[in-house]
């Protein structure tokens, strides 16, 4: 469905992307996360064919994103994080215009989506708030019948209620077999929605995989209480913290088995384990910046 191979992009002497390879499969919701300025939007704009990659290949629907942009865009919908519209047009007019430029006579189910997102289409764009402008772009995308949705922080201006509507809508899309590339800073949103995730940092993809796979690569948090004082954990534990009556430690998920065996000798009275949240994962990768592997 969507595939990039070894994309690099330089702006003058600044290397914004290096060797970015991604693959989004049909029917998949793919999360794309990374710190500010890491290259998410740049990657997306290459996929949209508005920036030209310095090297590497990028394809959508098996077609080249730069050369066949027009063909690809017939079946693609895009929502940016910061939506600017024509101040003198109403939201409804913009949605109709976009549908027409897509080659449709009318947006499909426009009223239904306007209602779902609680958007008044008769107001001039100049008077919309940021969130409402974003809703215009979202409604336009959802009424487009596209097969692939590329969303760059699509919810950065939405309130929690609308955020939920958005999440439901995305799930519906995926049930219909559509694919979604979702870049977001709202990690809980990505965690709830996405089948697979890529983490990008300083222009390079540092991790890709399902959340399960990614969790495997990181640490699990354990809370241990035992009859005897627990010792000898230093070999495994990353962060060791005494709580009243117990210990809180983080261990590499790969070594969980060894750790539990070791703990068994101390007479465990309580053992809680929590999988890392995406946020932990993110922090884990983010904090490695500069310090090498920690």
């Amino acid at each position, binding site marked *: 469905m969507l595939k990039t191979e070894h994309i690099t992009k330089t702006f003058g002497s600044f290397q914004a992307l290096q060797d970015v390879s991604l693959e989004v499969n049909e029917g998949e919701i793919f999360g794309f996360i990374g710190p500010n300025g890491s290259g998410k939007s740049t990657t997306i704009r290459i996929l*949209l064919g*508005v920036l030209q990659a310095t090297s590497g290949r990028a394809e959508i629907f098996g077609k080249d994103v730069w050369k*066949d942009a*027009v063909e*690809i865009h017939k079946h693609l919908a895009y929502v940016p994080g*910061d939506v*600017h519209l024509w101040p003198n047009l109403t939201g409804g007019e913009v949605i109709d*215009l976009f549908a027409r*430029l897509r080659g449709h006579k009318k947006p499909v189910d426009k009223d239904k989506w306007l209602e779902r997102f609680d958007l008044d289409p008769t107001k001039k764009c100049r008077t919309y708030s940021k969130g409402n402008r974003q809703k215009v772009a979202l409604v336009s995308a959802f009424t487009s019948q596209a097969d692939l949705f590329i969303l760059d922080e699509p919810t950065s201006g939405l309130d929690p209620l609308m955020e939920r509507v958005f999440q439901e809508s995305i799930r519906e899309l995926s049930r219909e077999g559509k694919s979604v590339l979702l870049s977001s800073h709202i990690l809980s949103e990505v965690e709830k929605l996405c089948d697979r995730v890529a983490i990008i940092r300083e222009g390079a993809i540092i991790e890709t995989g399902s959340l399960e796979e990614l969790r495997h690569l990181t640490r699990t948090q354990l809370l241990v209480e035992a009859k005897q004082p627990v010792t000898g954990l230093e070999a495994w534990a990353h962060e060791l913290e005494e709580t009243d009556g117990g210990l809180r430690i983080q261990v590499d998920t790969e070594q969980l088995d060894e750790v539990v065996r070791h703990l068994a000798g101390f007479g465990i009275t309580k053992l809680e384990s929590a999988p890392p949240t995406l946020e932990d994962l993110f922090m884990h990768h983010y904090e490695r910046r500069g310090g090498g592997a920690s």
Partner: protein
Amino acid sequence: MKEQASRHTLELLRFYLRLDRIRLGIWLVALTFFTVIVPPAFLGLYESDQERQLMAETMENPAMTAMVGTGALDDYTIGAMTAHQMLLMTAVVAGVMIILLVTRHTRTDEEDGRTELIRALPVGRRAGVQAALLYTIITAVLLALFTGFGLYALQIDTLDFEGSLLYGAALGGTVLVFGGVTAAAAQLADTGRGTIGLSITVLLGAYVFRGVTDVTNETLSWLSPLGWVSKTDAYSSNAWLPILVMIAAALALAVAAGILQERRDLGGGLLPHRAGKANAASYLAHPAALVFRLQRTALITWGVGMFVLGVSYGSVLGDMEAFIEGNEMMAAVLDPTSDLSMTEQYLPMLIVVMSMMAAIPPIIAINRMRGEEQKGRLDPILARPVSRETVFGSYAGYAVLNMLLMLTVVGSGLFAAAAASMDDAFPFTMIWQAVLAYGAATALLLGLSLFLQGFFPRLLPLVWGYLLYSFVVVYLGSLFQFPEWVMNLSPFAHVPDYPVEEMAFLPILLLSGLALLLGGAGWAGFRKRDLEG
């Protein structure tokens, strides 16, 4: 592949036309209206051949040529008069029109991210630029037809069919050329403001260059797009070659814009950007310093432009001196009893035009305040413990300094070039005083801008109309013999024409006082009104 890149060009064109139907309509109607009211007025004022010929003779001097261009002065019919006096100026205004319109649909849309939304749709890569160029063509054709047939419809003897069409075609051709210039500039600059700045620089550069070459060596005027306008010689020899040159130039610019557009990334420009400083200098903490910093580039660019303008007009003075010495007729027109040199008697006319041009940058400086307000960039400044009064005052103070600087620079340019080219040069203080006196008139425009910004910000563009009005009455005043009050509505009419007239301080004080009053009222209004955003 080719079709792909152009897909939906026509759809976008229709969209632009729909967005602009009122704006474009007003421009076209206004330009046509001001074109067709002139010949009947001339007909009323200059009935006999003698009167017209006398007018031609007062027109025949380097200062006038620099301002309005060359014309058929030896057979000064109503038609020749219209083409000589009006065509070039109308062409400049038509150029400004298309620069503003094309920028709206190219770089401004791109800067604001609207182009990205469009390009994410199945719309060809080149469709946007092509639609803007087609829009230019439609505007050009409409303007040419409206003005051409409008003039012919007056049924004045010397406004024949071919001449009228050519007159219209010269305006349309100017629209084509500057539409092309803007489309290309939109690829080079990476902001809407930069695109307008670059294109207007080309337009004013073409005007000033033509002014100098029309006086010194008319053949060289072929190098200026505005030179082509006068070279059509409409209603006299009717030369169509310049129209072909305009079309060719527009085509070349359009192709260049298309190629540049396809080669570059969306959002990027082709002009280099230097890396800025990471830390703000501590003086930036004060809003006045911030205002200055944000407009520094504009200040320098306009300063250079004003100096060039002063030099250009100053260089004409040398020709003027030589011309007057060899022309007895001129000596009769100018007051022979005056103890001023003849060149001095022409000085005020150049100075008033220069001072009107020098009013443009300070007015822009005040418009920036509204621009910042609309983009929501005043909010974070005002959210800090900075009062609205301080922000408003900073912009106002900066505008006044800007004005004084521009007047000084333009006067220095005039002085330098005059000193170099004349046998009998002017003292600097004389020029400087003459120029600065017009600061009072500009100050009134600034006061009015501040007043509108304080109370009715949406009416701020009216100030441009007022400046244009002032220009038109000065430019055409003697020609049309407007009633006194029409002239007096312009603040520039009240400034003494030093050194021809005595320096009178009363009108200067009155103008400045009124300016202060308006500005103060605006200041009070700005404290109370809602910010736009």
